[in-house]
């Protein structure tokens, strides 16, 4: 176990704390004296632990997981939000399970003007590729007009919406579809295309009709560019988009297609390219160029596609051309229904979707022609969310969800381009940065090998000395009031109050005990710095990594 811990030199240093001038501290609280030292007893305890732990526990994972809360409504709030808050839960209680779910399924009937006001700080969101290119040209030093500023704006806006929006399920679904229809902003010009793609493709359809979403996505400049279909031409088709359309967007890898189908789908999509006139307002938007299209019949999944000249014109709805015919075939395919059902159940209920529920949800897809809300209604029921249903299991928080959950737990929000993005890089889930068209992976096996960046984010966010730029947290004194921690006399029961009032009760009893022990043993003065020290530990515990 050599080098497991900080070196003795580091442990002995007991770094003096910087002079404090806490920007968010209303009343002057006592400045602590020397922090608690790593005394001999402590070190002996630690060594004893390490000796025990090194006895072979290092290898492999064991299948123990935290538990699902007995209250299905609480689990619903955990699953449909970007972070549980007591306030959201109380609102859900007042609306009832069905009332809350139906409210969240109709996002555009929820007044979200406060969030929209915050989003005005991110002008890139409303811009066309043309405008972004002109505006973020780096020509005016000192202003936020470099390309990197555009990227920081739309990445931060994702966190603003996640932390602030009252349309929480809409945000969850936008995240889901952004994974499903992944585009990587770092691919050359993609950053110009991404905001419009979010605005006109993902967000309007996130809780709408899957076939409509699929079509919007297929002809979106961002997707045509990301998967290279804009360069897919007759004579020598190129199948990057065609393959991922079948494998990742609709049927799934074993959904019943072969290499011939891939080639034929690629032929059907020849000619779908990007408007390349930089002077036009529609620059880099999807457009059909008949001259580049492979005419003639095609055979896709056993369906003959006649290959008649397409009816679509730039800027007009496409009806029966080859590409749309392919999308229709795929959207109606039973494999698509099962593939989407499985993915939605994995996102909202359990890493191991039960076959009977997949059947139910897939049947709903087919019966409703791909109504996303109808599928969610079948998935998010009180019966399914009951811990003994066999249909729900704890879900490991992905990094973005961990980050937004902690910000929301602390009564906070992202309200400007933020340094938190660097933490997401370290955690492995930088928004819009996934190079692979699969999008970021879903479950524990892909994320369970990294904890230090999460602990670092918790410590940085909850450092009462330093505001994390771009993130507004609740006032320290308000947090102290909420958890009744204004003085040393309020130590008893503090761990439980932190768990219940801030962390959504995700810490199991053993961890609450451990946190309370840390509270109890924390040296005097037990001031707000000590409380925030305890909060750092609370957010770093295993329980808060799940939801």
């Amino acid at each position: 176990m050599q080098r497991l811990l900080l070196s003795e030199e580091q442990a002995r240093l007991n770094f003096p704390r910087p002079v404090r001038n806490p920007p968010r501290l209303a009343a002057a609280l006592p400045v602590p004296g020397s922090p608690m030292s790593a005394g001999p007893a402590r070190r002996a305890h630690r060594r004893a632990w390490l000796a025990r732990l090194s006895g072979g526990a290092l290898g492999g994972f064991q299948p123990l997981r935290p538990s699902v809360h007995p209250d299905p409504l609480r689990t619903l709030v955990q699953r449909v939000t970007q972070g549980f808050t007591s306030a959201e839960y109380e609102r859900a209680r007042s609306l009832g399970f069905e009332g809350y779910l139906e409210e969240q399924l109709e996002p555009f009937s929820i007044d979200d003007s406060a969030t929209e006001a915050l989003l005005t700080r991110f002008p890139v969101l409303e811009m066309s590729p043309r405008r972004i290119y002109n505006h973020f040209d780096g020509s005016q030093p000192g202003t936020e007009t470099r390309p990197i500023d555009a990227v920081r704006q739309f990445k931060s806006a994702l966190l603003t919406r996640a932390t602030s929006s009252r349309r929480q399920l809409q945000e969850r679904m936008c995240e889901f579809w952004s994974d499903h229809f992944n585009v990587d902003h770092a691919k050359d010009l993609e950053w110009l295309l991404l905001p419009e793609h979010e605005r006109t493709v993902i967000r309007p359809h996130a809780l709408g009709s899957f076939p409509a979403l699929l079509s919007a996505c297929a002809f979106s400049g961002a997707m045509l560019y990301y998967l290279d279909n804009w360069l897919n031409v007759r004579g020598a088709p190129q199948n990057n988009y065609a393959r991922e359309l079948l494998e990742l967007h609709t049927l799934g890898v074993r959904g019943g297609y072969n290499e011939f189908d891939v080639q034929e789908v690629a032929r059907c999509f020849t000619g779908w390219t990007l408007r390349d006139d930089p002077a036009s307002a529609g620059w880099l938007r999807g457009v059909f160029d008949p001259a580049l299209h492979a005419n003639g019949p095609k055979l896709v999944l056993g369906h003959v596609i006649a290959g008649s000249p397409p009816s679509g014109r730039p800027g007009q709805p496409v009806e029966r051309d080859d590409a749309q015919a392919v999308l229709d075939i795929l959207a109606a395919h039973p494999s698509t229904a099962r593939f989407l059902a499985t993915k939605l159940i994995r996102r909202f209920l359990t890493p191991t979707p039960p076959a009977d529920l997949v059947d139910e949800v897939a049947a709903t897809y087919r019966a409703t022609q791909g109504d996303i809300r109808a599928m969610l209604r079948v998935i998010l029921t009180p019966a399914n969310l009951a811990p003994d249903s066999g249909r729900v299991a704890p879900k490991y928080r992905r990094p973005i969800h961990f980050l937004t959950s902690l910000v929301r737990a602390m009564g906070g929000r992202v309200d400007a381009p933020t340094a938190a993005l660097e933490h997401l890089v370290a955690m492995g889930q930088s928004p819009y940065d996934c190079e692979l068209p699969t999008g970021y992976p879903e479950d524990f096996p892909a994320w369970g090998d990294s904890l230090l960046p999460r602990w670092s984010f918790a410590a940085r966010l909850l450092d009462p000395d330093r505001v994390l730029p771009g993130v507004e947290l609740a006032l320290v004194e308000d947090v102290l009031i909420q958890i009744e921690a204004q003085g040393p006399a309020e130590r008893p029961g503090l761990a439980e109050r932190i768990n219940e009032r801030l962390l959504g009760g995700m810490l199991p009893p053993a961890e609450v005990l451990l946190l309370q022990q840390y509270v109890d043993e924390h040296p005097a003065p037990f001031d707000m710095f000590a409380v925030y020290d305890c909060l750092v530990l609370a957010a770093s515990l295993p329980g808060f990594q799940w939801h």
Partner: protein
Amino acid sequence: MKDDPRSSSPTPGLSRRTLLGASTSLAAAAALSGSARAARGAGDKPVLVQVFLRTGMDGLTTVVPHGDADLYRLRPRLAIRPPGQTNGALDLDGFFGLAPAAAPLLTPFGDGHLAIVHASGSIDPTRSHFEAFERMEYADPRVPTGAIHSGWATRYLLHTAAGAQGSLRGIGVGANLPLTLRQAPSTLPVLEFAASFPGPPGTAAQRQDALLDAYATRSPVLHATALNALEALHVGGVDYDAYQPEHGAQYPDSLFGARLRNVAALIKQEAGIEVVTLDYGGWDLHARLGPIDGRMAALLDDLTRGLEAFYLDMLGHLDDYLLVCLSEFGRHARENGSDGVDHGHGNAMFVLGDVAGGRVLADWPGLSDAALDQGDLAITIDYRDVLGELLVERLGVTDLAAIFPQHTLTPHGVLA
């Protein structure tokens, strides 16, 4: 311009580094390396370094079979021209040559320390990146489908003796571990090679205790991760900021260069690490391949300058590592209409280190229509045989079936 390897074909044995005039100290270093190897016990294994060229590196561009006329029939616009022509390949053996952008590989190749294995790869027929990752990284023979969910390097660690108890055995450079190391013992992802325990420093030890306590008792699934996270605070006890590469090695100023430099520092520390993986992405060039001055060339330039720097830096530690570069599949033999190449099959692999290098090992299947596999370069050397030879001959593996199930080793002479 003799010191510019891109302007001329190399003279065998006269590589760029010798031309740079560093030969005396390098020869001494190489000699030291040999004696160090003899002095150490048999338990000292080289560190296995995998560089995974994720999303399908185009081996027909990187290692050009310029002696196969069909290449120019299939890729009239994109194929690297034969040696001697403008932007022509850098000849290796009269049949294969390197892309001009991969010129830095001439250094280890000329020294006999780089073996290239062509028409190699994972024989699984999939042309899906994600399936191919699984097949290659799990080394799953797919009978039944998807039966294995651990990486082959994971099984290598499991089936060989651990070093000092509790010490770190594997590192995946990145935010998360690749499938190659999925569920590996004592293994962790490392994104930043230097970090400190977060939070108020005065209570750091107490929080560490509490976290270990919590993760040990409450969360066995995350227990190993938590332990590893603490160990990751200063991997191998190396001061990475102060590390000085040796022998004039100049790592490219890129993410890959910085990571490879840190890996070199770590291996030199002899901290007991057995496996290191790095991912190198960006190869999925369905459009605008750019083999001479575009995307592919830029990727090759960065990759191969990094490998050359690593090779030079590690000259005094030549038998302390074996570095393998591979990709989940190659690319389609025929160019497409977007000046790119779609997903394919057979590919080129690199093995760097104390190997029987300076050769392109291939049982070349040819690029005639009849020889292609669904339009792609066929595979005549299974990547498991390349890795298997290293595992059995150098890495102490006695039961290769535990690592590559249902596979019988056929060595191809990478090491001798």
